[in-house]
């Protein structure tokens, strides 16, 4: 197999990024082709590489990068079914996002730098996927972090975007530091940074502190893949442009963490404690994020919490020892989540607001965006996990893996003994996944119904709707351009059909570890039942609040008249029309604010850091500076004393000089 | 040389000092009177106004000796003596005839003469400053500047003669004298004589006492006998300069008659030069101050240097 093809896959978008950035100001016409073509070419190349590699094979190539005293750094390439699958996904999503962006950010003056960053982001993800060396992987990992910082802060005019980008950067870095130490530990124990060397060492039990190493790596994964407790950056990252959200959530950044754990799963299998921690992490993430999603008003934040939850599913599958299921869900989730975000972008574009309650008061929204309406429905069904859409199959795979782990026969597919996975991890994941399936269906139904099927409560609603931060997106007066519509349908195809790949054992499983991905009967029935129940609960709640809202809407004009209705409109209808408030009850407030994890962070990290900074500042200003000023004042005093003697009177100088000469003479005369 | 001889010599010099300037003064009166057609000096004493100078002296002595109220009294009173005394000392060393016919032979005589004459300027300065009068101060300053300026060409011209003779001693120079030195050193003689006139502040170089500008310069406030001292110092000055020019450039005692009458030649030549000085006074108008300085620096000094060069060349030519 020609090595140039896989090498070109990450190199092309990187070159495209450089070219876009270089030509952005001077040749604006070149920007769009330069943004789309390299990424598209990479996607095609990734597909070609995947096809050439075929199933059940892997390829490793390496060239020494830098000789060091210890473990060597090498530019290593590793291709197998996982990387093929994910690289195709990345290529597909990135291409769609780039195409979509050409229309979405048509009038943005900073479009060239944005496109370049997206290309670079894609290149970094390709690098992470293809890398066979942990240090090179880390390079891609960090480049993604920086790109996400810039992309989330694309609208840096708004304080939200600035703080969100900073938060994303800092939180992911908070995970990256232990991650780096974990990589060094791995390299030190295995004697190499090559992944297959590390895996070999792990299976042979050469790791000296497997639990510690795994936990350190988990910190990085939690940061990158937005797992509890480092998930808080992801909902805030919605301040970035919607295509970026799609890119981050579907294919690149958050996928990187899951992909890394999948690659290094043998390492994690050496530590049962780490797996339990991972499972707890996944469970908390799933349930918590689902509850939060139920309470959110911002469309994109709902989707963001749903991403966090689905990532929890993947982490749960990994905790159950089945990386097949995780990657399966990753790919199917990548497809439908990208679709969800792009559709959401279209909706936001049309409604010109992010707020669900504002959309609810908008008449005939579904008529304005029929493409988004339908594709979003498809994607939501996939999210809920109803057959026969892809989400059903991939979620079933996760549940099956969790069930097997709970019964002590984890589907490790030869990566380690089934007993390596504690059954507690399986149980935790299984219960949490079931609960989450219920909640997911509920918030998906709420989202869908609120956005498209609410009866218009007040005609004036559009005026008070909170505007989207994306002020400079495409003109809302016109219909969505084709570049924003057809990526939706392109992505809808895998959303609907990808799950079928898991049915035949010679298709997708052959590409992966070879285990079965067929849904088991009882879990399928239970999960589907839970999903349907959740959807029905959501529907019921919606009907109930809609009826109450209609009653209230009749009362309001009688009491206060139109002017009062206008002024009170933003405050009154919202709490009534939201089924989430009815369902969550007292939990609604905390869930709306992400269970105050941010406040916890603020208390745990921000305030101590600020206090420490204050202390350092105090020490610097009052203690150190006192000495500095003291030396200054001392020098001043000394200089003042010396200055007193410099009167400019030559005779005084001469008196001292001659007197000193006399004294010297006497001394010499007496001394000799 | 015994103490008695020395005393005799000093007394003789003092006599010369007291008599000759008066003779020159009387001569000036008479000569000027004749030249300018004045009648005044013809009457005093009857016979051709012989007692004019005596009358002047009596008049000066009679007058009150006034010291201005704001003046520095002691300096004011001391100034005429300081102006007068150096000439007396100089007279000591001027040879009159051959064979020790001189007050006191000094080894570096020419040098001594010039050095001591330089002190005379102090008298004018003291007088000008102590009078507490702006015109007097200006006159004193003018005197100082003029004397400093003209001392240099004078020294250079004298150096030329000393070089020719190979000695600094005045009798020594005269012993070396040949008749052709007169044309050889004629430029030096001119420079020396003119510079001497300027040293004396005689017309046309009497800017320090220019009455049309600063009344009477440093001597404005002086009256009576002290003023007479200044006048006397001027006449002694004429005598000294004439005698020095005679000794240095005109051969001194050398003449057609035998050496025993050399003193006569010296006196004759000296008086002839004194007549020239008087003649110049009635002939030339006063220069302006800047013309005076210009004349010294741009005419006399180059001339003196040229003379010096000529002397050197001829001297080397003769000896080699």
């Amino acid at each position, binding site marked *: 197999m020609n090595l140039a093809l896989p090498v070109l896959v990450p190199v092309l978008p990187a070159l495209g990024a450089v070219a876009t950035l270089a030509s952005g100001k001077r040749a604006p016409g070149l920007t769009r082709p330069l943004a789309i073509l390299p990424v598209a070419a990479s996607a095609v190349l990734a597909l070609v590489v995947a096809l050439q590699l075929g199933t059940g094979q892997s390829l490793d190539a390496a060239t020494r990068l830098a000789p060091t005293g210890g473990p060597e750094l090498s530019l290593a390439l590793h291709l197998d079914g996982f990387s093929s699958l994910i690289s195709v996904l990345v290529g597909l999503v990135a291409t769609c996002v780039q195409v979509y962006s050409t229309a979405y950010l048509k009038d943005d003056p900073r479009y060239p730098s944005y496109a370049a960053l997206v290309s670079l982001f894609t290149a970094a993800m390709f690098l992470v996927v293809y890398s066979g060396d942990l240090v090179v992987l880390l390079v891609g990992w960090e480049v993604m972090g920086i790109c996400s910082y810039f992309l989330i802060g694309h609208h840096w005019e708004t304080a939200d975007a600035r703080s969100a980008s900073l938060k994303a950067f800092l939180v992911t870095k908070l995970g990256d530091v232990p991650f780096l130490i974990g990589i060094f530990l791995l390299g030190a124990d295995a004697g190499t940074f090559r992944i297959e060397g590390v895996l070999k060492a792990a299976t042979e039990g050469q790791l000296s502190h497997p639990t510690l190493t795994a936990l350190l790596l988990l910190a990085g994964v939690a940061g990158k893949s937005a797992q509890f407790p480092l998930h808080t950056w992801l909902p805030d990252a919605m301040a970035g442009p919607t295509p970026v959200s799609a890119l981050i959530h579907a294919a690149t950044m958050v996928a990187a963490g899951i992909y890394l754990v999948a690659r290094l799963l043998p390492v994690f299998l050496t530590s049962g404690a780490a797996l339990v921690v991972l499972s707890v992490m996944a469970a908390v993430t799933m349930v918590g994020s689902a509850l939060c999603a139920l309470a959110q008003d911002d469309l994109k934040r709902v989707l963001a919490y749903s991403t966090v939850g689905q990532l929890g599913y993947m982490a749960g599958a990994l905790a159950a020892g089945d990386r097949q299921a995780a990657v399966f869900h990753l790919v199917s989730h990548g497809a439908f989540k990208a679709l969800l975000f792009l559709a959401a972008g279209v909706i936001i574009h049309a409604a010109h607001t992010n707020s669900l309650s504002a959309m609810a008061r908008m008449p005939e929204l579904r008529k304005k965006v029929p493409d988004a309406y339908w594709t979003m429905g498809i994607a939501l069904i996939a999210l809920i996990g109803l057959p026969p859409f892809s989400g059903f199959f991939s979620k079933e795979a996760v549940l099956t893996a969790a069930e097997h782990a709970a019964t002590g026969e984890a589907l490790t597919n030869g990566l380690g003994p089934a007993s390596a996975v504690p059954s507690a991890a399986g149980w935790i994941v299984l219960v949490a996944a079931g609960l989450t399936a219920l909640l997911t269906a509920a918030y998906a139904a709420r989202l869908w119904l609120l956005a498209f099927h609410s009866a218009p409560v007040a005609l004036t609603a559009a005026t008070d709707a909170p505007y989207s931060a994306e002020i400079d997106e495409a003109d809302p007066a016109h219909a969505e351009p084709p570049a924003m519509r057809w990526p939706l349908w392109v992505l809808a195809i895998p959303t609907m059909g990808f799950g079928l790949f898991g049915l035949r054992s010679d298709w997708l499983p052959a590409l992966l570890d070879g285990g079965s991905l067929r849904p088991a009967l009882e879990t399928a029935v239970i999960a589907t039942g839970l999903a349907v129940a959740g959807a029905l609960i959501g529907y019921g709640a919606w009907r109930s609040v809609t009826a109450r809202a209609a009653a209230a809407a009749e009362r309001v004009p009688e009491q206060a008249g139109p002017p009062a209705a206008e002024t009170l409109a933003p405050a009154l209808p919202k709490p009534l029309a939201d089924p989430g408030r009815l369902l969550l009850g007292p939990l609604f407030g905390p869930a709306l604010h992400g269970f105050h994890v941010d406040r916890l962070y603020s208390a745990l990290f921000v305030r101590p850091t600020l206090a420490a900074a204050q202390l350092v500042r105090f020490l610097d200003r009052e203690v150190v500076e006192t000495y500095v000023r003291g030396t200054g004042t001392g020098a001043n005093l000394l200089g003042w004393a010396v200055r007193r003697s410099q009167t400019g009177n030559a005779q005084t100088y001469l008196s001292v000089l001659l007197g000193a000469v006399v004294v010297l003479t006497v001394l010499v005369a007496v001394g000799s | 040389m015994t103490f008695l001889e020395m005393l005799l010599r000093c007394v003789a010099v003092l006599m010369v000092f007291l008599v000759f300037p008066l003779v020159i003064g009387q001569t000036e009166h008479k000569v000027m009177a004749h030249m300018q057609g004045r009648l005044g000096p013809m009457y005093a004493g009857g016979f051709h106004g012989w007692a004019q100078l005596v009358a002047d002296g009596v008049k000066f002595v009679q007058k009150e000796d006034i010291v201005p109220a704001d003046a520095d009294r002691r300096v004011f009173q001391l100034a005429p003596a300081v102006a007068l005394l150096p000439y007396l000392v100089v007279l000591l060393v001027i040879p009159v005839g051959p064979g020790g016919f001189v007050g006191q*032979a000094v080894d570096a005589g020419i040098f001594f003469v010039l050095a001591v004459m330089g002190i005379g300027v102090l008298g004018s300065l003291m007088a000008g400053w102590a009078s507490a009068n702006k015109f007097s101060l200006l006159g004193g300053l003018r005197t100082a500047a003029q004397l*400093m300026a003209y001392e240099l060409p004078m020294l250079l011209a004298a150096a030329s003669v000393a070089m020719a003779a190979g000695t*600094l001693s005045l009798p020594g120079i005269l012993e070396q004298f040949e008749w052709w030195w007169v044309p050889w050193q004629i430029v030096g003689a001119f420079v020396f004589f003119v510079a001497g006139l300027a040293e004396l502040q005689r017309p046309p170089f009497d800017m320090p006492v220019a009455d049309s500008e600063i009344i009477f310069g440093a001597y404005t406030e002086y009256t009576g006998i002290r003023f007479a001292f200044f006048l006397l110092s001027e006449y002694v000055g004429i005598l000294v300069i004439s005698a020095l020019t005679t000794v240095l450039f005109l051969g001194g005692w050398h003449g057609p008659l035998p050496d025993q009458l050399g003193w006569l030649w010296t006196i004759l030549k000296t008086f002839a030069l004194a007549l020239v000085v008087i003649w110049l006074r009635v002939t030339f108008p006063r220069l302006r101050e800047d013309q005076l300085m210009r004349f010294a620096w741009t005419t006399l000094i180059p001339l003196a240097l040229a003379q010096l060069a000529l002397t050197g060349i001829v001297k080397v030519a003769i000896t080699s």
Partner: protein
Amino acid sequence: MSLLAAAGPLEPAARSFLSPTGVEIVFLLVGVAVLGAALVTVTTRQLVHAALWLVVALGGLAVEFLLLTAEFIAWVQVLIYLGSVVVLVLFGLMLTKAPIGRSPDADSGNRWAALAVGLATAGTLVTLVVDAFRTSWIDLGAGAGSAKATGEYLFRHWVLPFEALSVLLLAALVGAIVLSRRDDEGKKPRPRPGKLRAGKPVGTSSGKES
């Protein structure tokens, strides 16, 4: 030399401070006069008097040189110091508007420090000199200071320093001229000074016109 001879015999008969020779007596007397004049010079409050007392001190020193048989140097002392330096000093005093009478501020504030330093210097130097040359005797013999001798050593052994000194004098001359020039002289065209021509006052009228 005859003047010196009149002052007393020169033979070094008794080398004792108690039986001084005539030259020594004259030297001491003149020395006392010099010191007195110098003291008055540095203490008097009348500025011009200080300069005049300086004349006395320097003249006394010339006599001391004569007594030390340095005749030529004595005359040089008279010519340069008395004839030129003091005149220049007086000139300077008058140009800087020295007042007649006592100046209350002739001495600066640190005169007591100056007195201390001066006394210390005097004490140290006198002690040192007396200690070192108590028994040394000058044999005042042949006239080593005559013009002839001076010329011989000056132009035989010291020609190069002599010439160098002439260059230095030239530099000092130029420096003094540069320092003395008024700055505004070059700015406006001065009236052209008339030529020196006897009998005709040239330049006065033209000077007024321009």
